[in-house]
């Protein structure tokens, strides 16, 4: 009888510990990349590299998010709840650099003056390389783009 109780207790402890570990793992996920962050990565990283919010100002993100049904020739439409969650995340982490406020905000990172200046030394033939395909294909040259690292030490232009 005592043995049976003991086994039940052990089992309960193990199950509880597992539960606690799982909720701890979930809590860490929210800390590092909040729920909206995960949705952003999932939704905005499906067709291309998930462009980090810091590369465009808030009004650009708002305009992009309002036009997802016609998104650079693709349909990237989202349900309203997911869209507003992602919009909030993008706005919160958007670029705060001083920039010209345009009547029509730029929708492409690759068309911002900042991007052009940062990449002025990249040769035309490198942009046209089929291994690069599009200037928006950040990961073709920034080998650690997936982890948000754009440091020049990790740039390797494909030849």
């Amino acid at each position, binding site marked *: 009888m005592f043995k049976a*109780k003991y086994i*039940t*207790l052990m*089992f*309960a402890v193990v*199950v*509880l510990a*597992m*539960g606690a570990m*799982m*909720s701890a793992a979930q809590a860490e996920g929210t800390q590092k990349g909040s729920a909206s962050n995960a949705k952003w990565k999932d939704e905005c990283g*499906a*067709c*291309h*590299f998930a462009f980090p919010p810091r590369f465009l100002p808030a009004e650009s993100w708002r305009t992009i998010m309002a036009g997802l049904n016609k998104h*650079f*020739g*693709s*349909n*990237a*439409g989202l349900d309203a709840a997911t869209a507003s969650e992602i919009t909030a995340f993008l706005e919160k982490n958007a670029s705060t650099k001083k920039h010209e406020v345009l009547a029509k905000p730029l929708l492409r990172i690759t068309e911002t003056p900042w991007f052009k200046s940062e990449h002025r030394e990249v040769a035309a033939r490198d942009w046209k390389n089929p291994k690069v*395909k*599009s200037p*928006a*294909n950040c990961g*073709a040259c920034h080998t650690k783009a997936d982890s948000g690292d754009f440091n020049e030490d990790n740039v390797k232009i494909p030849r």
Partner: protein
Amino acid sequence: MLRIYFVFSLMFALAVLTANPAFAETPVEVLAAIKAEAAGTPGFQGFSAERGEKFFKTKQKHKLSCSSCHTDNPAAQGKHSETDKVIKPLAPAANEERFTDMKKVAKWFKRNCNDVLDRECTAQEKGDVLSYLLTVKK
């Protein structure tokens, strides 16, 4: 007392496990749901994997087909036609995450059919495609 504690912790563990939204459905359940949708259309005579394969590989509007991104072999890794981004295999035999979440399936059918056909796919077309994908071996 211990027994109650045990039952409680078991329930707690179960709740944590089932709260995970992944793998909500199986591909067969998804197909059944599409079938229920198609059954409402007049003249429905079931799905055809052969028709699905032809649909999948035929170029339509904008010179695009499903294989433009998912390749002619849905068990292989695909590549987005615009961005070159890698796309995991579409056939459930090669990727167990496929067709296990009704909402995700509906979202991508809507988007991709609009890209390829300039309209949404009919339930017949969706059922044909999934029937085909289920015949693809790894």
